[in-house]
């Protein structure tokens, strides 16, 4: 089959897709054949398989009832596009509708699943795109039952900051409350999940601009301190603040923000990436593994002496531990778990800050 015939057939087979998706796929395969070079073109086309096969894989991934994209399984079992665990074909269910409220006086409405998919053989629903119809900036509230997110909560926002509030009086709460303040209109908020997992995605349109003097956009999550097993936060612009909480795994990636946490207990993995931020943790208790990379300073109080951990703290500056200073690097090999720290700025471990009165 010639290149032209292959691409023409593919274009036709991808007709059900939105134009942008179709163009993206075609330009990928044009690129692909260019990169293979004229001398390998025939072989590359043969290796790709028939246009029907290539198209089927793309359509499977795109369609709401996306069939399996697992390469080695010819069976076309329904699968979710959002696979959050290794080996898991997660059923996606429509978790929640989003209630936008202009008025603070409107009572918060608990959100119940619209449909549930108890096993992976049922057809998963796709995400619900939600457009917030508002002028300027607004606030809105979303409640999600704890059992829908107690295994995993994933927050992915390309605008705004996130604060977790965990008042001790919340222990009997059955819902997590997500309060959005000063978020701009017309973004798309989606929630997806299943099996105790929820992913909340907030995507601002690419061409959207917010005035520089706009009040800070803040998502406040109110939740019992021990309600979560795994929390993943990925933000493009904002910071993260965490009230005291206990969980098994915490992953935080902030492209342009900093992390500020109070008492944090992580029993398995703590992974923090702050390519343009710093990290302050008032009290950190880790059992197994923590890795924190920050561009500015890392300040944290460990549960116990850093020497009791297998620590590797590297910085372009100095590492301060208590009253001692180490140039560029501090290492220790204790038995209390692994602690990897990297910062361009200072690293302060268990340093008592002198706060201005």
């Amino acid at each position, binding site marked *: 089959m010639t290149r032209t015939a292959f691409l023409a057939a593919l274009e036709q087979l991808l007709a059900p897709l939105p134009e942008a998706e179709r163009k*993206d*796929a075609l*330009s*990928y*395969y044009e*690129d*692909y054949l*260019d*990169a*293979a070079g004229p001398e390998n073109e025939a072989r*590359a086309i043969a*290796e*790709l*398989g028939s246009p029907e*096969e*290539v198209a089927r*894989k*793309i359509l*499977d*991934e795109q369609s709401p009832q996306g069939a*399996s*994209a*697992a*390469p*080695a*399984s010819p069976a076309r079992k329904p*699968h979710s*596009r959002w*696979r*959050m*665990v*290794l*080996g*898991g*074909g997660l059923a996606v269910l429509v978790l929640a509708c989003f209630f936008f409220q202009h008025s603070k006086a409107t009572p918060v409405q608990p959100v119940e699943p619209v449909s549930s998919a108890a096993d992976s053989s049922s057809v998963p629903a796709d995400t619900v795109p939600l457009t917030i119809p508002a002028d300027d900036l607004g606030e809105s509230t979303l409640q999600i039952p704890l059992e829908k997110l107690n295994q995993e909560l994933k927050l*992915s926002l*390309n605008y705004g900051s996130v604060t977790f509030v965990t008042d001790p009086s919340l222990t009997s709460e059955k819902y997590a409350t997500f309060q959005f303040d000063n978020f701009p209109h017309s973004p798309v908020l989606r929630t997806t999940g299943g099996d105790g997992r929820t992913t909340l995605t907030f995507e601002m349109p690419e061409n959207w601009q917010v005035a520089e003097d706009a009040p800070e956009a803040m998502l406040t999550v109110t939740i019992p301190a021990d309600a979560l097993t795994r929390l*993943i936060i*990925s933000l*493009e612009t904002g910071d993260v603040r965490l009230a005291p909480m206990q969980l098994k*795994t915490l*992953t*935080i*990636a*902030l*492209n342009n923000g900093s992390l500020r946490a109070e008492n944090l207990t992580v029993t398995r*993995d703590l*992974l923090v*990436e702050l*390519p343009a931020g710093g990290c302050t943790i008032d009290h950190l208790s880790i059992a197994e*593994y923590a*890795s924190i990379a920050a561009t500015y300073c890392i300040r944290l109080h460990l549960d116990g002496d850093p020497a009791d951990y297998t620590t590797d703290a590297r910085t372009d500056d100095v590492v301060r531990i208590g009253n001692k200073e180490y140039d560029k690097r501090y290492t220790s090999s204790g038995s209390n778990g692994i602690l990897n720290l990297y910062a361009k700025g200072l690293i302060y471990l268990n340093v008592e800050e002198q706060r201005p009165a």
Partner: protein
Amino acid sequence: MSFPISAALLDAIVLSVVAQEPEGTYGYKITQQVTHTLELSESTLYPVLRRLQKDQLLTVYDAPFNGRNRRYYQITSAGRAQLAAYAQEWSRYRSSIDTFFREVE
């Protein structure tokens, strides 16, 4: 192949291949690297790359190459964090499976 590769594992593999090239890498090269080691169809990779891009774990840019634009994929910081989580999870999974085989070899 006796053991199917789950979509999450494939995501993890593609993330790690892209992560090896801080300046970015392109579809054909990624495909060659993955299929060199794993038995899977060349057409499997595009949907994976597209999904990772939509999930903001990869980002793309176009740069001229031989008089034409070529699309390059680069890992994002969220992608790196996800990759680290996958690597941890895989290592745990591997050791738990290995406990069954310890006596076999």
